[in-house]
């Protein structure tokens, strides 16, 4: 389950070589940041969450069991740290829900994808992700960006399988609708 490289560096850290922990920061910081930014929507806070997650991982490295993937164990820490941050800052209320109207957002979205060169894609995606609810944005990133299977997402988030499927369906719908309703993703 655990990669050889991860195992070697865990052993090094546990035997007192603190500098060996740099390997984990280098390997997992991008993914951790990607998860954090999807939920906290703010670069400064995302960096803060990532930093706290790594420190928590370092402190709890002894509790890691090699029967699970290290990435799954670590991302669970990132998700927990992010949820803790959101709870503390009560940011849940600030996100909007898309208008659930009968418009065919799927075909509008798919056709608009071909014209993306016309727009500042990064800005549009960022805007859409910022409008999404944290849990939906998280699932979208875990499933599509990091290609985590449902079983791993279950371990990372602690949500049930059926809950993940429902949230994922809603996340897709939300992503399409918000892209069209609030951004330039139009035909």
């Amino acid at each position, binding site marked *: 389950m655990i990669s050889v490289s991860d195992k070697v560096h865990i052993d090094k850290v546990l035997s*007192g070589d*603190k*500098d060996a*922990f*740099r390997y984990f*920061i*280098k390997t997992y*910081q*991008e993914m951790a*940041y*990607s998860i954090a*930014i999807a939920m906290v929507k703010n*670069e400064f806070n*995302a*960096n803060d969450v*990532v*930093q706290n997650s*790594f*420190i928590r991982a*370092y*402190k709890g490295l002894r509790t890691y069991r090699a029967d699970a993937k290290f990435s799954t164990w670590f991302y669970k820490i990132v998700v927990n740290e992010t949820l803790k941050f959101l709870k503390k800052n009560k940011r849940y209320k600030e996100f909007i829900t898309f208008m659930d109207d009968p418009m065919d957002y*799927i075909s509008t*979205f*798919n056709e608009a*994808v071909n014209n*993306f060169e016309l727009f500042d*894609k*990064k800005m549009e*995606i*960022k805007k859409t*992700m910022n409008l999404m609810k944290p849990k939906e944005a998280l699932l*979208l*990133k875990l499933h*599509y*960006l990091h290609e985590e299977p449902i079983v791993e997402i279950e371990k990372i988030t602690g949500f049930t399988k059926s809950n993940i499927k429902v949230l994922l369906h809603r996340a*897709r719908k939300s*992503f*399409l609708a918000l892209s069209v309703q609030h951004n330039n993703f139009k035909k």
Partner: protein
Amino acid sequence: MNKTEKNIQKLLIDNNELKGIDVNLEDNIMNKINSQTDYNAVLIKTKHKAKIGIILSLMLLVVYGIVTYLELLTTSYNGQFNLTNFYPTIFTTLVVIVVYIEMTFGVAVFRKDVRS
């Protein structure tokens, strides 16, 4: 994965927002980690101290048993109480206490800063 899902995935992969990562993130984390107390070392030190404490306690218990068995602590003062008769016992007890603490906790007892 249908066409829409593939489009979503492509968009997310092509536009993954990573430029906001703090360039000093790695160093910041390492600084914090390096300033953390090494609890493993503290634990080993404490276990060592506890071990010394237990050995000393057992040794003193054995000495006490021998002294009691041989009735070495019985002071003969002909029915009269005189504090000077107890000076050797008080002195010995104090020495034993100091040696016990010193052996168990090292020089930490005599210094304010006990952390290495």
